[in-house]
């Protein structure tokens, strides 16, 4: 029963209907076990993210210099000794970035986990309980959604003396949970009326079991994509806070590097090696997380699948991906399949013309 709305099963069923009899059970099982990794976008995203996670762990150890060490090599451009050059006080920028990776990752993940937890509690409760409780919880999340988060984070962080990483993660989580909760509530609301939940209720399953074993497994994809969205938001917010100097300027993260670059006139001095790499790191992590999110989206919604990745294949097969049908490419294409897809589109035309006339 619960298989029916399981996202993995759903996508499998969808592709199976488009191309019946494609592949044996063994093939299908293999595909399922590989899951998200089969998606090229998600795979690239996961690899980039893994690199940064490893750097977050080993960064302080492999950093060639002490990031705070002042030397006489002022504003050196990148060289063999200093791969990313030095600051105006002769500090090694590569070491600052490597040491700073941990701060960014820890706050991003921590805030992401906390915010996802709040959004699951609020969203699922609102969707499941309904009535007045739903109204109040939805109101709460809508209020948090519409109040601009960054100014709110700034005034809270500025008031807390010596705000460290944990405090920042807490503040970001407290303001960033609303979007996920809104999406989860909508999905729970639609799941609550499904047959398998009704059946579980008729069987006399207790409420906690219905929530945790019937509803929650079907929310996995949404929770995961909500977590990634919040992690992006958290990383951007944290770096921004460090850049404008709200948080401690002595703890290294990528925003701190940019803070010193901006306040030491790196732009006017043309010291591009000071501010370009930090921004590229932020963009790389952000892109990686977005790619994983796209992977999840395409995993859940087959209509979005095989559009970008297989543009070349479609062109080769002379299928013009346009309206009316969703081309699904799997394995070696057969001529018959192509013809099928085309005739389906053609077959529609006369009927529709009748309707039109």
């Amino acid at each position, binding site marked *: 029963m619960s298989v029916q709305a399981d996202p993995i099963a759903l996508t499998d069923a969808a592709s199976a209907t488009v191309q019946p009899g494609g592949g044996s059970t063994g093939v299908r099982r293999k595909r399922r076990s590989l899951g998200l990794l089969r998606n090229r976008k998600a795979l690239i995203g996961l690899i980039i993210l893994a690199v940064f996670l490893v750097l977050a762990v080993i960064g302080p150890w492999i950093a060639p210099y002490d990031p705070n060490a002042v030397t006489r090599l002022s504003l050196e451009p990148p060289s063999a000794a200093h791969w990313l050059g030095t600051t105006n006080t002769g500090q090694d920028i590569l070491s600052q970035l490597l040491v700073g990776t941990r701060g960014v990752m820890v706050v991003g993940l921590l805030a992401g986990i906390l915010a996802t937890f709040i959004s699951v509690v609020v969203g699922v409760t609102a969707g499941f309980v309904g009535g007045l409780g739903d109204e109040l919880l939805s109101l709460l999340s809508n209020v948090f959604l*519409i109040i601009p988060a960054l100014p709110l984070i*700034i005034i809270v962080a500025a008031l807390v003396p010596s705000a460290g990483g944990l405090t920042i993660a807490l503040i970001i989580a407290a303001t960033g949970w609303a979007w996920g909760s809104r999406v989860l509530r909508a999905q729970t609301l639609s799941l609550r009326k499904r047959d398998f939940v009704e059946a579980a209720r008729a069987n006399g399953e207790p409420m906690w079991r219905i929530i945790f074993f019937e509803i929650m497994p079907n929310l996995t994809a949404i929770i995961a994509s909500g977590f990634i969205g919040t992690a992006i938001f958290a990383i951007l917010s944290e770096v921004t806070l460090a850049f*404008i100097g709200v948080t401690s300027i002595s703890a290294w993260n990528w925003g701190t590097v940019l803070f010193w670059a901006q306040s030491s006139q790196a732009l006017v001095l043309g010291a591009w090696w000071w501010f370009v790499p930090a921004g590229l790191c932020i963009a790389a992590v952000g892109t990686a997380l977005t790619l994983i999110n796209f992977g999840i989206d395409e995993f859940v919604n087959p209509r979005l699948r095989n559009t*970008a990745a297989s543009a070349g294949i479609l*062109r080769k097969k002379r299928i013009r991906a346009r*309206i009316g049908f969703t081309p699904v490419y799997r394995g070696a294409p057969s001529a018959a399949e192509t013809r099928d897809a085309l005739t389906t589109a053609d077959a529609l035309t006369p009927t529709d013309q009748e309707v039109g006339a």
Partner: protein
Amino acid sequence: MKYFLRRVAFYLFTAWAAITLNFFIPRMLPGDPVHSLINKFQGRLSTDAIKSLYVLFGLDKHTTIWQDYITYWQNLLHGDLGISFTYFPTPVSEILAQALPWTLALVGFSTIIGFVLGTLAGIGLGWRRGTWADNLLPIANFFSAIPYFWLGLIAISALAVTVQVFPASGGYDPATVPGWSWEFISGAIYHGTLPALTIIISSISGWILGMRNMMVTVSSEDYVTVAQAKGLPERKVMFGYAARNAVLPSISGFALSLGFIVGGTLVAEMVFSYPGIGYMLFQAIGSKDYPLMQGAFLVVTISVLVASMIADFVYAFLDPRTRVEG
């Protein structure tokens, strides 16, 4: 009509919640900021300012928190947001009133241009999915992950320092007198181009990606197939049938993402030293100017609420279903 009343009630409630939050935040946090402030500004704070500080932070032990709250509202309704430390003894409301038009103009223009261009590009990309156009998606994706302020830094170093096409900072030509003269306005537009450009570039990709995915979803609906099969011109099917329905989530998303965009814009203002609310906030952070910080938060929040309300009403006008449901 009932729908509109519900929405107005919601926005009033949100405004109340934001104002109350602003009141409670300094009271909930640990420490005594007033003492450290008085020490820091030794001799420069008048007794009036100290008194209003105590009211602001709720450290006046002689009154209950409820009385404080009433006083806070009374002050607020008289437009009294306290006195700034940075620009002592100018009231916060006066400083913000000067800064607000700059922010409104910058955010207003760049957000609307970004939304329109992004939506149009998304329509095109979604309609032509599975062609070369899909190669643009990873680029849009990359740009959506870049923080506004960093793009601002890059823009300054490329277009204001290396190639000196645009000014690196400020909001108008310092040689002109602010007013409705052509010299001043053209100078303001010239100074605003670079900040606006960075905001447009970093906000546009979100609209492109969202619109593209909606176009892909909508264009496999039956009514689009029917329109196509009837032999309607491609342009008409694209804009009149598919895009018209696909744009609805973008518009309802517009109201919700406004807070995020405005947050990014404030930081962009800091980078460009643009004389708006964001720059004031930046200076307030540097000098621990709490009244100015809180005033800036309130003004930004209320502006975002008004803009979201307008976007909501536009949505209700475009999609009759919302009006019926209410």
